[in-house]
């Protein structure tokens, strides 16, 4: 209990720092939002419009301390303000257009990559020098070494453009009605397949190597020898004894990556024209859209913190040793 409280206090402090930093950073950036919006039109907008834009967007004035108080108050009310680049849409509405899709694609890609990679790592580690162990790691390392952008573009070109197995863009067919029907879900799955596949292929190697190394370290331990002497089945030994003990480092990195899911896989979204937070973030930075930037950063920060808290708890279940000092 004391352990959990201590962690909680730590997370509270971290959250406070993140929130404060989130307030300060955009204000330290050069440029102004009205100017950025005007600049996007590259001379097609008459210069008079710049004044009008400044009047409409009008970044909050007043002393920094007061702005900070207002910022905290709005934050507590779940009010992230009005987007500037998408003026006058509220930030939540802007973020909402991408949130679900990012969670779907980046989330499933992460889970599939983690589960598959870890499983492959266990097998490869258990049967060192086997077919799987000698073929997959170099192959995955080879693929993983490609710049992701290049890999995704290439696959999109082949599967989407040349062979037409998958759609070229978007999260579902243009004009399809979002609903809980088989056709729509199948449509979404068909659109998400290639983006997820590319991310899994690009990240699989990392999970697998990590798991394999951890396995190798565990394999030499005496309790495995004991288990084998007791006559436990190979499957039980490999998965329950060696696998479970070797899992910790991978679970820790899962916690870290889980948080970044919300950051969105920018490149995936750009290549597949997939709606999501990553592109929104870049767009917000480009157009000096502080409110959207802040909204996204806050969400990401909290996602990282929550994911890590969950992993902390999870770790104590997988490996009681991590909580032994408190017990």
């Amino acid at each position, binding site marked *: 209990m004391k352990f959990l409280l201590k962690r909680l206090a730590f997370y509270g402090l971290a959250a406070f720092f993140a929130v404060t930093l989130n307030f300060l950073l955009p204000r330290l*950036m*050069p*440029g*102004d939002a009205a*100017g*950025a*919006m005007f*600049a996007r039109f*590259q*001379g*097609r*907008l*008459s*210069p*008079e*419009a*710049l*004044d*009008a*834009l400044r*009047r*409409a967007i009008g970044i909050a004035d007043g002393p920094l301390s007061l702005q900070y108080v207002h910022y905290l108050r709005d934050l507590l009310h779940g009010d992230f303000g*009005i*987007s500037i680049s*998408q*003026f*006058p*849409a509220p930030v939540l*509405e*802007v973020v909402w*257009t*991408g949130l679900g899709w990012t969670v779907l694609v980046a989330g499933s890609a992460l889970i599939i990559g983690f589960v598959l990679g870890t499983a492959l790592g266990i097998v490869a580690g258990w049967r060192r020098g086997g*077919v799987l162990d000698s073929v997959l790691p170099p192959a995955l390392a080879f693929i993983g070494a490609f710049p992701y952008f290049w890999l995704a573009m290439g696959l999109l070109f082949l599967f*989407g*453009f040349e062979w*037409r*197995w*998958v*759609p*070229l*863009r*978007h*999260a*579902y067919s*243009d*004009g399809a009605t*979002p609903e809980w029907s088989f056709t729509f879900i199948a449509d979404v799955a068909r659109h998400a*397949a290639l983006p997820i596949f590319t991310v899994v292929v690009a990240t699989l190697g990392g999970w697998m190597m990590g798991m394999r190394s951890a396995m190798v370290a565990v394999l030499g331990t005496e309790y495995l020898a004991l288990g084998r002497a007791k006559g436990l089945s190979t499957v039980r030994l490999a998965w329950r004894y060696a696998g479970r003990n070797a899992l910790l480092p991978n679970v820790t990195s899962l916690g870290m990556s889980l948080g970044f899911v919300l950051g969105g896989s920018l490149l995936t*979204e*750009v*290549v597949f*024209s*997939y*709606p*999501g937070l990553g*592109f*929104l973030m870049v*767009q917000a930075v*480009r157009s*000096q859209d502080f409110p959207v930037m802040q909204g996204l950063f806050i969400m990401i920060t909290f996602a990282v913190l929550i994911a890590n808290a969950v992993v902390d708890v999870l770790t104590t279940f997988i490996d009681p040793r991590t909580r032994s000092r408190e017990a």
Partner: protein
Amino acid sequence: MIRARFATFIGALLTIALGAGCRSERVEAPPGVLTLTASQSQATWIRNFNPLMPGCRWPSAAGIYEPLGVYNSVKGEWVPWLATAWGWRDEGLTLAFTLRQGVQWSDGQPFTAADVLFTFELIKRFPALDQKSVWKFLDQVSVGPEGEVLFKFKRVYVPGLPWIAHQPLVPKHAWASIEDPVAFTNPNPVATGPFTEVRLFQNQVYELGKNPHYWQPGKPAIEAIRLPAFPGNDQANLALVDGELDWAANYVPAVERVFVRKDPTHHHYWFPPMGSTVFLYANTTRAPFGSVSVRKALSLAIDRNLIVDVAMSHYTLPSDATGLSAAYEKWRDPGAVARGTWVRFDAEEAGRLLDAAGLKRDAKGQRLLPDGKKLSLSIAVVNGWSDWVRAAQVIARGLKKVGIDASVRLLDEGTWFQRLQQGDFELAVGWSIEGVAPYEFYRWLMSRETVLPLDTPAAGNWHRYGSEAAAPVFAEIERTTDPVRERELEVRLQEIFVDEAPAIPLFPNPAWGEFNTRRFEGFPDAANPWAALSPNKMPDALLMLTTVKPRAQGAR
């Protein structure tokens, strides 16, 4: 054995997953639905059809809503739109518009002078909506005895005409109750334009159906326009090459090979050099750029043909000394062009001019300022805008050849624009302001009225140049309603610009435009240039939206 079984299993899985039945055919829009992209570079759409603010969805300002008149920038002539005629009265103090009869809003209500009055009152009450600052020169708007709308000016200001004529007009009956029209997203527009019915709005695509009450009989011939969201140019190009887009405004590299050759009968493009002219701006508040011969020398050191070649893949031409793009073709004066010899590439002449300006070379061949300091300067460009970056590299190389230590300075877009606005640069590559007549273009290049103090953000005239000679010409154009006299004055502006070289023109931007005639026809191109092709040209796009029609059945 096991491996063979495994392979079969994976194969079966793939077949099920991707399945022959799932094979995606080319996405085909329903008949009569024109799919297009105007450069909005956005991964997701936000529903906003407020035509009075710039963040609205295409074509809110001209397509959903409409103006009184449309200036056809290719032909250089006005097309009457919601007004049938207009003219100056009271020696240019009043502008009178005769409204078109029988125009209805998309909900069936009649369009009247009250709507025009309401719109202009609205942008007066909310200055944030007055994107053209018309109330700077307007005094009042009223209805005349014959039902015409009278715009009374505070002073004679003839160049105000296009700003009034191009103002999108909103209906009084639907907008009078809107409390905050600045923050109004107008999700279901009531408008006079050809496309007013939002048939579909999703975060990745929207579709606008035709106005059931449109005032041009039988138009638009298109059922609906559909705009998919593309996060970037590459994705839009893929759709274009694939034949999914019927109309686009994309930059396409190697367009003949990439796009046209895929289907030469139907794939067409037209890149007329009528976009904003790209300039090299020299900050005239800093030595030695206050000197006209130094500016001309900089210009002479630039190999524009090389820029057009390496930065613009020959999609445009080197600019002449007037800096006017093809959008001002009818104004261009051959005499002024001939006088502008400082846009040719002549390093020797550049050296002579620099010598004469007192910028002598030292032992190592480096140019020195008159006070003996080494002349070294940086060219500010936006990091990642590769065409400009390459242009800046060519410029820097040319300047080095004449002994000026020039380097390219890559800046983040926000920083670059901030410095430009505040006049915090030596040399910078930037765009220029587009207008209907050269007056507007030159006003933001050399009018004393547009010169702001350093550190005060300026929307144009970043190089801070005010011409003595041009001041009376600008003033007279503002008072001149006679087209013959106006032409003389606009030519005079060109001559002054050529003499004083306030900024250094590089090349006009092409107005990117592509179309596919597999499903639709009636687009303009180089052979039949009746309007601007690029959907980014507003309000010209209205001309296209009302003219393009589905291809006759069976025609190939």
